[in-house]
């Protein structure tokens, strides 16, 4: 159970990082395409 929780938590965290820094838009204008197109 603990293993599943830790792994699931890790994967969710990775998905959140991808979503927050690449996919979601930013209010400072650092738009997602800007950040990921390089």
């Amino acid at each position, binding site marked *: 159970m603990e*293993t599943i929780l*830790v*792994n699931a938590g*890790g*994967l969710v*965290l*990775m998905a959140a*990082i*991808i979503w*927050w*820094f*690449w996919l*979601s*838009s*930013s*209010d*400072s*204008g*650092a738009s*997602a395409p*800007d*950040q*990921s197109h*390089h």
Partner: protein
Amino acid sequence: MTGAPVLRTTLSISGASCQGCAKKIRNALEPLTGDASLVEVNLEDQTVALPEGVDATEAARVVTETGYPAEPVTGAETPASCCSATSTGPAPTAAEHENEQAGVPDSGSEHLAAATQSDGQIHLAVTGATCASCVNTIEKALKSVTGVNHAHMNLADNTATATGQADPKALVQAITNAGYGASVIEDTDAADDRRQEEDKKRYKTLLVKMAISLGLGVCLMVWGMGFGSMTVTDTNQSIWFGLGMLTLAVMAGTGGHFYAGAWKAFRHHNANMDTLIALGTGTAWLYSITVVSIPEALPEMARHVYFEASAMIIGLINLGQALELRAKGKTSEAVRRLLDLRAKTARVIRDGQEQDIPVEDVCKGDRIRVRPGENLPVDGRVVEGSTRIDESMLTGEPMPVSKAVDDEISAGTLNTHGAIVYEATRVGSETALARIIHLVKKAQGSKPAIGRLADKISSVFVPSVMLIAVAAALVWYNVGPEPAVVHMMVAATTVLIIACPCALGLATPMSVMVGVGKAAEYGALIRQGDALQTAGKLDLVILDKTGTITAGHPAVTILHAINGDERQLLALAAGLEQHSEHPLAEAIINKAKEQSAKPMKVTGFEALNGKGVVGEFEGEPVRLGNRRWLEAEGLSLSGLNDVEKAITEEAGTPLFLALGTRLLGVFGVADAIKADSEAAIRRMHDAGIRVMMVTGDIDATAKAIAAKAGIDEYRAEVLPEDKADVVNEMRGKGYTVAMVGDGINDAPALAAADVGFAIGTGTDVAIESASITLMRGSLHGVPDAIEISRATVKNIRQNLFGAFVYNSLGIPVAAGLLYPVWGILMSPILAGAAMSLSSVTVVTNANRLRLFETSHKPVQGTNQSQLSKGERN
């Protein structure tokens, strides 16, 4: 001029400063216009005029992408210089119709005036930026502000520049929102002073913070290792809790700026170096405090605390930043030395009264008195007295130059001889010295192509590192040995700490700053980072002849007196020629002065067009002129045939002197090769560069000069407008070509070349027209710039290589890749030290460039010695 297109659509641009920029813009617009020659780029007005029917928005986009922020300016009031057809009132373009319908006022010219008035640039002082990610974040934040066309952040001196029509307050707000501090720089000089002061304060603060956090970290480590244990037990639980709280206080006090920066960046969907530090140290602390608070929740093996890691990492990073700050200060010495040349006050004569006023208060038209030994406060024209001015700090010429009434003089130069009064013609930022300082600063902040690589990588780097850290943690948890929880935490923390891209962010700007400063020391003003990079790759240098290889004005190169008395020959010729204003006469008079031959008294002077000059000396006619004329006068010149041949072989003009019917001698007058041209060309050969000469002169002259100067190849009888074709032809053959010229006639060729070198003085407009301007008249500036460029690019490569290798090796090791084979797992403390070491290494390596010396030492008495004189003033 057949079929001239009707130019209607106009773009306002910024940043285009030379013919090279104009060419880039023309070429970029070629797909839209069908022919690059239909595009008119006006550098003065910073406008681009396009043929009718071209989509202005699309054209603006293309030009902006080329690197010159542009926007359409449509309206009948387009500048006359761009488009004289507008005054005839042709039908409005589609774009104008759109504007009219949308209620956009027809304010093209006003808009343009506003844009060009202040150069369209807003400079900001930025605080809190530490790495390539910060640069990226700040540039993006600035670009998001309405009206900003282009934004650039220079990490080396912590300034940002926004180009366009933005509100400065909005720019400051955007940077603040992105997690950094910012203020508008109104007076760049005052800002420099202020920044120096702030840097000093920050350096001290960082050292104090470093001492506190490192002190705690070391104490914890020593205590843990020597007297207690880093493992939580029932007996030491409360002590560790207290120490945990103390660590938290120290972390907040000495590393608070990392957490605040990380949070601000996070809120704006950004991640930077602060993010990695905050996550790394935060993870270590949270894990440790969990162990202390609920040790029973973890297996006994995993009850280890890492408070010392958090404190030491913050301490080491603070130390790294302090060292970095100190080294950064040294890189801008070149600019500081130039700034030190300025006089602080000026002795102005107003209403007949002399008064010392601050140099900032001097107005155009003010009369200024300057005594011997004083630096000139502003540019101007001499109105009273005469003197000799040492201009070496601007032109590199070691000999003081005589100045009399009506001569132009420049700020920052040194009055060595007499007292003069002069009228201010250019003050403040208009002076030649101010323009030079501005150009050096601008070039120091520019980014060569190689540096853009670091930016591209850093934009995805930090989030990627976070993903790697989580992935490494999961791998350790699933397949790692016990205690798995400890290992996963250590691996994740270490990855986050070691990956800070600060070295990557500093690699290029530090080297560029030192390289450009070094080039300025040698009298080469590099205007763009790109030129710095390209100059190192040159394999063909094309030289203009007149004024570049040669002095640009005729001089007596051969002197032959039949009776052997050269001084007497010179005295008589000078006596005759002192009445003439011909350049050949000037050459003879200069030679007479050089040899201290006093001009004899010659009367009845007369210049005979196409023949020579005639006068009367002691009742006899004295003639100086060409062979045909003297032979026609009945003189036999056969005795001087050999000398005449030697003169013509050296591309000189023979002038025969006769008194009555007696032939006295001959002068060879030629545009002499500069004393050091040959040596400079030899240096280019040594650097593996082919040297070519283009000239409008006849083949025989060109051949003679080429042979004497050691030129590999020459092209004679080339018209100024065809020089660019020669450049293009050689580029077509695969050469990376530099063109060296005087910057006026050679402008198209300078623009066509990969690197244009303009030979000009500091006060010359030539500064604005080439990518590199050689302030000294000497050709040595070319090999100097090439050598410095090669050294700088090599230095950047070393830095980038070091930074990349460090990260690409450090991250896998930190993630634990070596553990299965050798059982090595890096400690987070070591990661913190390695990270600091990498940025200190990059900065130190860049500073190594300051010691670089070219293979040719500058002439004694130039910059260095003058700078110290300037400082005394």
